[in-house]
Structure formats: C-alpha cells, structure tokens
C-alpha cells in the first residue's frame, strides 16, 4: 500500500458480492472526533472508575433523592401542618384569597358557593362528619371520602393549594349561612 497512484494497490481485498472498496484515508476532522473521544474516555475512566472522584449513576440518584427529601423535611419543619399553623394561615388574607379561588373552581358544585352544602355537607355549621379540627379538615380534603363521592383532592390540587383551601374553610365555618343544609356528623366545639 505504498504506491498510492495505482488503483489495484489501493483496492482492499474483501469483496461483498462484487462490491469492493478503496483504502482511502478518512477526513482528518473525522479522525479527530475519534482521537478526542479516546482522550476523553481515558479521563472519564480515570475519574469515574479508577479514582472514583465522581459519583456513579446510583450515587447520583441517591444524592438527588436525599436532597429532595431534605428540602421537603426542611419545608415541613419550617411550616408544619398542625391545627395551630393552619389557624394562623386562616388569618392571612393572601392565603385565604387563594383558597377561596380554589374553592370556587373545585368545591362549589357540591358544597355550594357559600359553603351551605348541596350534595356535600354544610361547611358553615358546627357539625363535621370526619372531624372539624383544622388538621382533620385538611386530611379529609387530601384523601377524600370516595364512598360518598368526595374526591381525594391531594393528587389533583397538590399540598399547597389544599392548605390554602383549608385556610379558607376555617374562615367560613360557624358562620351558619342562611339556607344551609341541616347538621350532619358530630358537633365540634
């Protein structure tokens, strides 16, 4: 393969149904992509597989999960769901306004625009079927009462909007709107 001028010399030996190929050199830019990849792979191999200075995919995954869990935990620690914090939020006008919007789009069809109850129970009296403490109300909204037709809103609305709507509900309870549904459940003092 030293005399590049002769056709016969540059033809390679293999033969595919009469198709043969010349031994021409690849373009340099093409070769360079190979050279760069070879150099890159060496450093990659040393970094991840010899020195273990970089995380492998499982470590990366575990780190991401841990970071997310820590974020959630710190959020919960800063703002825990308790009767007291929910009551606190019900005094925040912004939260209540957001909650009212959620209520008006999702809840009114069963609980009526004023909360007096329709298919669903009256939310403005002292009586609660599944517990009237703030945290209990939030729980009922989140998991729903499927047998009675109350949707589990947790996956639909998400945690923060459920807190908002709970805050709104705490502002309308015990207002006993006129024309409301009769008492259901037990009295909450």
């Amino acid at each position, binding site marked *: *393969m*030293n*005399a*590049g*001028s002769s*056709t016969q010399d*540059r033809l390679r030996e293999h033969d595919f149904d009469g198709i043969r190929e*010349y031994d*021409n*050199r*690849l*373009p*340099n*830019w*093409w*070769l360079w992509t190979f050279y760069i990849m070879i150099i890159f792979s060496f450093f990659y191999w040393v970094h991840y597989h010899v020195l273990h200075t970089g995380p492998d995919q499982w470590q990366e995954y575990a780190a991401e999960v841990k970071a997310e869990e820590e974020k959630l935990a710190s959020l919960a620690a800063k703002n825990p769901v308790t009767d007291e914090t929910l009551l606190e939020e019900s005094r925040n006008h912004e939260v209540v306004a957001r909650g009212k919007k959620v209520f008006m*789009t*999702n809840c*009114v*069809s*069963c609980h009526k625009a004023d909360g007096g109850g*329709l*298919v669903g129970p009256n939310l403005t009296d002292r009586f609660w079927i599944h517990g009237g403490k703030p945290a209990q109300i939030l729980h009922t909204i989140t998991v*729903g009462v*499927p*047998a*009675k*037709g109350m*949707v*589990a809103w947790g996956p639909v609305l998400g945690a923060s909007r459920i807190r908002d709507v709970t805050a709104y509900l705490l502002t309308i309870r015990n207002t006993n709107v006129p024309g409301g549904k009769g008492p259901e459940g037990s009295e909450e003092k």
Partner: protein
Amino acid sequence: MNVPEGSGVDQEEDLKEVKRLRSGPRRPDLETLYCIDEDGSHHVIHPADVRGRFQRIKKAVWTILVVIYVALPWIRIGGHPAILIDIPRRHFFLFGHTFNAMDFWLAFFFLAGVGLTLILLSALYGRVWCGYACPQTVFLEGFYRRIERWIEGTAPQREKLARSPWTVRKILKKGGKHFAYLVLSLVLAHVFLSYFIPVRELGNVVTSSPAAHPAAFVFVMALTAVMMFNFAWFREQLCLIICPYGRLQSILSDPDTIVVGYDARRGEPRGRYNREGRGDCIDCYRCVAVCPTGIDIRFGLQLECIGCANCIDACDEVMDKLGQARGLIRNDSLNGFEGRRSRFWRPRVVAYFSLLALVFGGFVYATSKVEPIEARFVRLPGPAYVIEGGKIRNQFRLRLLVKEGGPRHVSIEPLSPEGAEFIFSQRDFDLPLLEYREVMTFVSLPRSSFRQGTAVEVWVRFGEERRTVRAPFVGPDD
C-alpha cells in the same frame, strides 16, 4: 501533515507520496473523494462562475424559497402566525389550523408524505431536491458563495488568495468575508427562531438580556455556530459524507430516472478541438471547474452529484462557442444517453406514487377528523356510582377545549336522563382559546327510574356551535 503514528507504514515514503500527488493540479477520479486530499485534509473547492438557463431557474426558485422562509412567520392567518411552533405551551399553529400535543400523531402522515414525495421525485428526476430546494444548497450557493465571490473574486483569484502568505490584504479579505458570514448566520438563525417565538415577541426577546431567555439565546448561538462551521468551511462534505439522502440515490433511481449526465456516445473520443476525428467533447474541463462537489460528470452518475446542473450550463456555453449542438451534458435518463427511449411509468414509480397517494389520503382523512372543539366526560376516580338517599349518583369532569377561532362563551344544558338532577360547577363562562376547562358534573337519578343502559347527555354550546356529550350512567345491577 498528519500521518498517524504506528500505522505500520513507512512515514517518510508516505509523505513523499502525498507530496508527489499534491503537486500539479488534482483531477477528479472515481477512486477518491475530491474534497478530501490524500493526507485527509479538506481540499477546498473553488467552483468557477457559470451562466446559463439553469442558473436563472435556480435563482428564481431560491428567491421564492427564501422569501417564503422569511415571510411565513410574519403572515397571519386567522389571528395567528402562518407557522408558529410554541413548544413550551405545546401549541402548533399551521396555516390557520391549530394543533396541540394530542394531535402530534398527524406528524406521521406529514413526515411520511414528505419522505415519499422525495422518494418519488428521486425516482423520476434524480436529485432535484438537492440542486434546487435543499436549504444547504439554497443558503450555500445563494448567499455564502455569493459573498465569497463578491469579496474574494473569481475562482482563480480565490485559489491564489488561499495559497498566498498572510498579508494585511489577505487578513482583511478573509476577515471581512467571515464577518459577513457571521452577520448572515445570525440573521438566518433569528429567522429560524421566529418559527418558535412569535415575531411580535421576538423583538423584545432579542433586545433583552440573554439571561432573560437563556434557551432561545443558546439555541440561536448554537445554530449560528453550526451554520458558520457548515457554510464557511464544511460545505459539500455535508452532502457527500453526512447526508443519507444521496446514498439512497442508487436504490431509488433506475435507468429511466432523469439525471444530469454526459452523452458519451456523442462526446467520445474526447480530444483537443483541432484534433481529427474527435467526438464533441473537447476535454476543456469547464464542467469540472464549475462543479461545487468536485466531480467529473463524464465518469457517469456518481454519489457526489447533487444535480445542480452547473456543468450543463457550462458545457452548453462551450458548445455554443464551437457551433456544436447543446446538450452534450444534459438532463436525461441513462437509457436516453444510450439512445433508447426512457419510460415514465415503471413499476417503482407506480409503487411510490400509490404509497404517496395512500399517505396523502390518510393525511387528508386524519386532519378532517381533528375536531376544532373538544368536549368529553371523564369519570371521577373512585367508585363508579354512589347511592345516597334513594338516589344513584355518577360523577364526571366535563373536559372542554376550543382549538380554533377565538375565545367562546360556553353554556351547558342537561338533556338526559329524564328526571335526573344535574349539578355543574360552572354552567356559563368564557373559555379562552387552547385552555382546558374541567366542569365538575354530578348526575343524581332516583333509584326507581334507573335502567341499565341509561346514558347521560348534555348539550354544550360553544358560541354558535353545539356539541352533545354522552357517557353511560352506571348503577347497581338489580
């Protein structure tokens, strides 16, 4: 010169060989790619100027294509740009029709249709796409090569400049050329961006800080870099080494396909114009000098031919000067060059045409099935029905969407079953375009009037239009 080490070849010998081959003008052959030199470096091709009827046709076609490309995002049809692909919102506006992500399956018919059109075209007329309509050709020959010709001069002048040592004049010429390329690439990249960001917003996006629209900024910069690399240096290598379409040519074409070719029966034996008994070809190499991919068309149909017809115009000019008939190089089929008649309808043309007709029919049918309005019941998760106080209750979300026209006023009217009590979370409201709205729907029916097979039906009015939405009413078996 780059000769890899350890290849088992005597490097000294190899280098000498390479030098020997590079001395003297290189001529195209069938064994090597003309744009790659023996040592693997890019052999820059400087196609000579050419005039003629195909140049005029191409100029007209390219002008029309570029005008369409630039103008489409500015044209508004039905209140929306003629083409706008809004990826973040997944709204696609195409020629007055609106599609969302749910309609993406239509892309199958569209892409299959485009692919089959190209296949049919290649079987009939070879690579007309490459020569006349491919963006690579339109931008390279229509813009970049013109700029190069304007700044650096004719092909011999360009070649001389490339060989000359670096002087102030060369730096100015090369720098000016690449600056012009850069400006042009930036403009073309922004035009492309206007297919994804409405032109009305594009002005704000371009004048604001890159940090405000990082995705668009990176996109335009990357596209500009790719265009610079491609049009300033890479050029014909894209067609010859990367593009898969040219490689398909050999399976798509047959001896009846119209291609750019050389009439060897007329031209051979080639020879100097004053030689006795020569054919029509005077071996002037004009056809090679004007070729943008650096082939000699007289070797016959080759992978590298992009069907640009430069060699036809060049040869016709020479034939005119010699007083010989035009068409020594012409658009004809391989059968035609052999003196036989070429057929238009061959089995492969019939097959490609039938497939194309089928896909086109599918496309028309499928698009006619895309409703501009969507309205349907989605049952709420949980039990299918609830029995309470002697009544059976079914619960739905009524999903509503308007895809065309504009915002509509929506009102909902219960129809069936009779005697049922309907509760809607909303019954009268304005629905913006392309926004899903879910209306909670509760249907209660006294147990006594429930029959198996009862259906829930409501009328939904969207402005002037009305849809009936249906779902089965579910209850206990007894």
